[in-house]
């Protein structure tokens, strides 16, 4: 056997999926910040989190992802896409791009994603639960019902979240997410 007949192989890249995920996660990250300042439930969940709370939600091994944490005022803040230099208290990492694509294109709901072991969570589990609930609410705001229904276990009925709160909230959160305030 000639060793040179069996060269090293560096697997390729999949830019399309990566770009989609980067955009999706960028919006979601900023929407969490916006929702925490708009929706009272999300606000309350954030209040319950410890002061040094810092979440990274991303894709293994090289991203994309986002960091959301509490700023010095204790308010939720989107802190960019990079992990580096931040002391993360809760890491939620999806094992690979394909899995992330399944979850963030709602082919698998978040709960199913968990059931399918797509996530690796490090950190305090009760923080993860809070963030789980926050993400559900953010998705309800961001996405039309028909899509969100794929992502969450139970879509809230009007008693739990009135249409007014939902639609007004949606406009505000979108605006804030994109403008970043």
């Amino acid at each position: 056997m000639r060793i040179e007949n069996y060269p090293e192989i560096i697997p390729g890249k999949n830019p399309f999926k990566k770009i989609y995920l980067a955009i999706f996660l960028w919006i979601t990250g900023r929407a969490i910040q916006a929702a925490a300042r708009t929706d009272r439930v999300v606000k309350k969940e954030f209040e319950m989190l410890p002061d040094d709370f810092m979440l990274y939600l991303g894709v293994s091994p090289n991203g994309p992802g986002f960091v959301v944490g509490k700023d010095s005022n204790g308010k939720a803040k989107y802190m960019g896409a990079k992990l580096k230099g931040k002391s993360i208290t809760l890491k939620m990492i999806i094992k690979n791009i394909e899995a992330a694509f399944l979850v963030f294109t709602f082919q698998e709901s978040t709960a199913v994603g968990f059931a399918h072991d797509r996530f690796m969570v490090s950190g305090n589990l009760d923080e993860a639960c809070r963030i789980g609930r926050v993400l559900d609410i953010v998705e309800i705001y961001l996405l039309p019902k028909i899509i969100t229904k794929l992502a969450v276990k139970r879509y809230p009925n009007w008693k739990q979240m009135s249409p007014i709160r939902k639609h007004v909230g949606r406009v505000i959160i979108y605006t804030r997410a994109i403008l970043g305030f």
Partner: protein
Amino acid sequence: MKLTEQFKFFNQAKIISGNKGLNNIPVELDDYNASKPLIITDKKSVEKKFDKIFIKALSDSNLIIGALYGSVSNEAKIAEVRELVDLYIARGCDSIIAIGSESSMNTAKAVNLMLCEKKDFLEIKDVNQNLKPLIGILTIDSRDTFTTDIVTVDARTLQSNYLFPNVVIIDPRMVKGGSEESVVERSLLALTQSIEAGTYGVNNPMNDSYIYSANQYIYENIKVLSKNRQETEAAVAIANAVYMAGVAFSNAPTGIAYALAKEIHKLTGESIGKVAAIILPHALRWINGKKDNGIKDKILQSLIGIEGYAKTPSEKRSIMVIDEIENLIKSFPKSLPSNLKDLKLQRYILENIANIIPDKIEYKITAKECLAIIDAAWSSEKEKV
């Protein structure tokens, strides 16, 4: 349920099964701090472009494939193993991934052994240490020992707990396709392994849970998949059954149908799966007459489901198992004859094999009894056993 008083169970192989399963490889390797695997696969897999699918699934990871060796043929051979050890070292690999056929996995295991034991494969007598991370990727060509704790290279066989692969991956992209015949043969081989593991073995609930899941998967999916090899769910299910049967097989004594089939395969080249399946009901009929053993009626549940099982009176359950298997075998007239005669095996070879089997298995059987089982399978006459 009665437990046997003493038993052991071990399965090192983690299974990842389902959509995009392959894409988990980087994370799995990372668990072992590994990032540069040597890939060992065979010509058939390369022809079917499984190597390409595999490489694509690793995109956007930090893995480097140390080398992809795609020339393993039908049998693992010592010369190739030695060369691959050199390749592994030259490239500074830290893990091994085997894709496809038995021979790929056997080669991979042997390479792993040589690397860790630091001596030639032929000089290794037993294994007492953890080996390098080894991942097995099942394809439509994987069967028999792909997921077991056994390695066979050049007629030399070793068994050790350390020889299970660490991770076994079943991904729909790799397990669809092939011919009806290969589906039947692969599935029925797994069925033989699992049913025999649950029959000759002790009452071991750990192993039984693999056995019953395997049976159930095979029984529910073999017909669907043999008709349409592109049926994703059925294909994944059968591959799962291959894995489960392999584990069950590793944790139980070898059964008679399997032992006979393996020997017949060695001498005639006939597929183990086909021969084993034809012999299975006759071997079961024989063991069912034994005082100390018999077919556990629970096997029936795994074959025909809870409802049918519950409806069958308990004294009829073991006989029903045999009938069910016989009916199953008959449902593939194109791929599988119902007796050894129609398989065109030579009587004189079978007679010779009957004489050597008693020394090869743990369960007590005489050459005469072996021959009686072969006789029954020869013409599929029930009364002979």
